[in-house]
């Protein structure tokens, strides 16, 4: 493998996981905050379901998505199987429960007085949720980071729906699987190092962001 291919694989990994996590964060953070602040009959069951989905085996999700996206499946007409779009959908579905579940925990763990104060302001629901998200932002950022780490290190789902096609759907994790099977362990170790560096870089950016946010609010 040459350096150009390594860069292409790395960028695709970041792109696929990044888009998936951005999408799951936009929906998951709002959904989590709404669930945490709302009172409805099946709330406990809903939270239990989300907690369960947080541990969905990627291979199972990949298989289900494969059946749905394949030509004979209900969404076969989209023609996205074995494309980066399918990989994004897989990682989006995989990370959505993580972001949602951790957003629920972050909002629910805010002090009761604070939640009551915000509720007593009788703001429109979306403002109330926005204020709560702002207060719980540290926990929520941790949730997003956990989701990204899950996405970028995931292999089961993307290999099934992406197909590990060279220069097209091959990402760091699926490349590691491929080169391990080929016995090219030097390449595997380099890919592993790059994967670790990507994860480290994202962590560093988030840490810096949290620090800046803390500083700005001071």
């Amino acid at each position, binding site marked *: 493998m040459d350096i150009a291919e390594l860069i292409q694989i790395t960028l695709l990994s970041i792109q696929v996981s990044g888009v998936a996590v951005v999408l799951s964060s936009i929906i998951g953070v709002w959904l989590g905050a709404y669930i945490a602040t709302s009172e409805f009959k099946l709330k406990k069951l809903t939270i239990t379901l989300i907690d369960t989905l947080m541990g969905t085996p990627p291979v199972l999700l990949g298989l289900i998505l494969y059946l749905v996206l394949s030509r004979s499946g209900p969404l076969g007409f989209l023609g996205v199987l074995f494309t980066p779009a399918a990989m994004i959908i897989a990682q989006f579905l995989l990370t959505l429960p993580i972001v949602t579940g951790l957003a629920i925990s972050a909002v629910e763990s805010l002090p009761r*007085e604070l939640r*009551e104060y915000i509720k*007593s*302001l009788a*703001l429109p629901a979306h403002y109330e949720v926005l*204020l709560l998200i702002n*207060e719980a*932002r540290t926990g929520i950022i941790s949730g997003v980071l956990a989701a990204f780490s899950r996405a970028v290190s995931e292999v089961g789902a993307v290999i099934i729906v992406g197909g590990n096609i060279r220069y097209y759907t091959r990402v760091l994790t699926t490349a590691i699987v491929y080169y391990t099977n080929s016995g090219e362990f030097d390449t595997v170790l380099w890919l592993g190092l790059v994967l670790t560096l990507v994860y480290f870089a994202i962590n560093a950016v988030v840490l810096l962001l949290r620090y800046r946010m803390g500083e700005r*609010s*001071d």
Partner: protein
Amino acid sequence: MKEVIRALNIVKYFGETRILDNVSLEAHRGKIAVIMGPNGSGKSTLLKILALLIPPDAGRLEIDDSPIDFNNELEKRSLQKKIAYLPQRPPVLSANVFNNIYLPLRLRGASKEEAKKTTESILSILRLKEYAKINAHRLSGGQKQLLAIGRTLALNPQILLFDEPTASLAPNTAETVQDIVKRYVREKNCYAVIVSHNITEAKKIADELYVLVSGKIKETFSGQISEAEILKWI
């Protein structure tokens, strides 16, 4: 229509424990009703019910002769806009002191100019102007309390529900707050129910005083309030 907040035979359980046992009280416009009682007597729970934050298990709440339906979210939200509830340990938002007053005003629909003007004036009155840019979490307990009171009054509420508003304030600041609250209630002709542990404070601000012990109203005073009578219960 009679202008009164009326709680009638309110009952509240937490688990198996009966926190409020047929509690009834009235608060009138332009007057301050004070609730006193030992720790754990149910004062804060009663205040939260009046603030429509938790529903009673039995009993009725009426505002200006209209019964409140705790299941009607729309009605509750519309009423809550008129209510200013200040909990025992008032929280501050993770923002600077200025934004702690400015943000709720803006989110409630005030224009930028209006919100800015009100915030600056409140900060001046409370002598917190020099802390405007500081994170509110960095204020002392007393300053946070002052900020919370200012933030509450800035919203121009019609019903004040304060839970021990002067508990963490120095005596002279507490007196200033008592004067501000008393003046506000008289000038705006609004309702006020205040929970207090301080007999001197209660005597100073209360037009009506309720002594709540073990979830029951044991004594009601209006007009002349006898310290000895209160002390008998607390």
